């Protein structure tokens, strides 16, 4: 006997509809508020262009740093048993839930000229990270890195390790086995992690303005420009918001199958 398809309860459907409207309405509002006729001019204005270019440079650099340091970290967390592993994982995940402004204050306490490391950097090498583009990259990496690490670690954990074992029994060195077997198998996770961390870096606000300040052309990235131009130049702010919205949507859609499964 086949079970008949039952209609979903009305209350649940209504509540779900409210939730969808809650997400959709602000986006509709944003699209409605945009002045489409001047969009090209707004995005072409000097401040907008400098914010767009700077955001691209900073977020891509943060993504590169996340891959460079996140890959080994994800591997260690997935494959090496060591005391305090849970603690290290918690530490890595912390920026996911920490308010970004607090992250910025924490970065100041470490990397400002009065900070634990920043003082030495300045005294010995003359390097000042605060109020510099490098500082904006650092702040973005701080919030973006966890996304890469958890995605790749999950990929490494869920892959079938027998392939690695076979490679080892066939005499492949660890490095060769990683490059030829492990990496191709976790490639989707690596790509998803990189895209996610890039999107997070692109949207970073709190840590950036706290640690790197808000200098046009140097540290004023897209979200900072949106926030600070909202009063003086609302059209530019909305135009830049639309750019961020389109990018975010593209990221979600491109990763949809990975998270939500084919619909």
């Amino acid at each position, binding site marked *: 006997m086949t079970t008949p398809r039952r209609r979903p309860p009305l209350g649940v459907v209504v509540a779900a509809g409210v939730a969808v409207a809650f997400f959709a309405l602000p986006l509709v509002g944003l699209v409605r508020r945009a002045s489409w006729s001047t969009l090209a001019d707004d995005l072409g204005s000097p401040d907008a262009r400098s914010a767009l270019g700077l955001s691209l440079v900073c977020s891509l650099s943060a993504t590169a740093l996340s891959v460079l340091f996140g890959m080994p970290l994800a591997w260690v967390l997935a494959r090496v048993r060591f005391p305090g592993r849970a603690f290290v994982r918690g530490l890595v995940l912390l920026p996911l839930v920490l308010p970004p402004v607090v992250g910025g204050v924490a970065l*100041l306490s470490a990397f400002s000229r009065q900070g634990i490391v920043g003082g030495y950097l300045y005294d010995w090498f003359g390097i*000042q990270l605060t109020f510099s583009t490098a500082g904006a990259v650092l702040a973005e990496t701080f919030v973006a890195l966890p996304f890469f690490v958890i995605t790749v670690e999950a990929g490494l954990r869920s892959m079938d390790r027998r392939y690695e074992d076979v490679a080892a029994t066939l005499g492949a060195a660890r490095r060769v086995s990683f490059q030829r077997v492990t990496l191709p198998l976790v490639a989707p996770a690596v790509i998803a992690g990189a895209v996610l961390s890039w999107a997070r870096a692109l949207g970073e606000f709190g840590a950036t303005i706290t640690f790197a*300040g*808000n200098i*046009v052309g140097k540290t004023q990235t897209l979200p900072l420009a949106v926030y600070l131009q*909202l*009063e003086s130049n609302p059209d530019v702010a909305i135009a830049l918001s639309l750019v961020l919205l389109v990018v975010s949507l593209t990221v979600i859609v491109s990763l949809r199958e990975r998270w939500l499964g084919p619909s």
Partner: protein
Amino acid sequence: MHVPTDRRARPSPGPAGRAVAVVAALAFAMVGCSSDDSEASSGSSANPTTTTGSSATGAVTVSAAASLTEAFTTIKDDFTKANPKASVTINFGSSGQLATQIRSGAPADVAAFADQAPMATVGDANLLAAPARVFARNQLTIVTKPGNPRGIKGLADLATAGTISLCAQTAPCGKFADQALQSAGLTIPTGSVTRGPDVKATLSAVTEGDADAAIVYVTDATVAGKAVGTVAIPEAHNVVASYPIAVIKASDNPKAAQAFEDWVLGPEGQAVLRAAGFMAP
């Protein structure tokens, strides 16, 4: 008898059911809160003169300039001590931002800004119950790292003194700082200027961050105390900021809002402002 078996056989309705229960509980809690609030405020407006006239009741929301943070926090405490049936919530921010919020319909009963211009935008939108009154004045000063390691002597040194923190142009302190720099004929290279959303953020770039100097209000420098060095801006280049206060027309509680405005302009409020370093209106 068919239905129960079917229900049991369904895969894990548990967590979803629990989540719905949590949301429902939250919703009820929120409904409870808001009905309490409306009861309290409607009760107060229904019989406003049970006490001897001047005593304010109910909730008042004040949108106040960031530079008023310390003074208005004290004033709020004094006001609610004198009017135990009233409660005051203050939303601090840059006057420009607060004005934008009010024009977009954010609920506020009283606006107190650091400049007449943002108040005028609210007035032009016909949102003020009565014309704004000036309740204090303020001036700008340069603040540096403690001990002034860069040896900054005046505005002219800011062009070459490293990273300078100024308020965003939409915040009054940013507008005034630009006016002061302009009157001194000085341009700081764009790459050395970081702009804080409001005066407190601008100040903290020096106290917490690595900015070498900032232009803030005299009152903010007073609050920062030993965390900064102070270099006065000569009268010729300085700007006087006039602080207007007004009741918002759409206020739910205009009586208490007016009482708060009067308190700020009255002897108690003025004494607090004077102690914080503000000048008389």
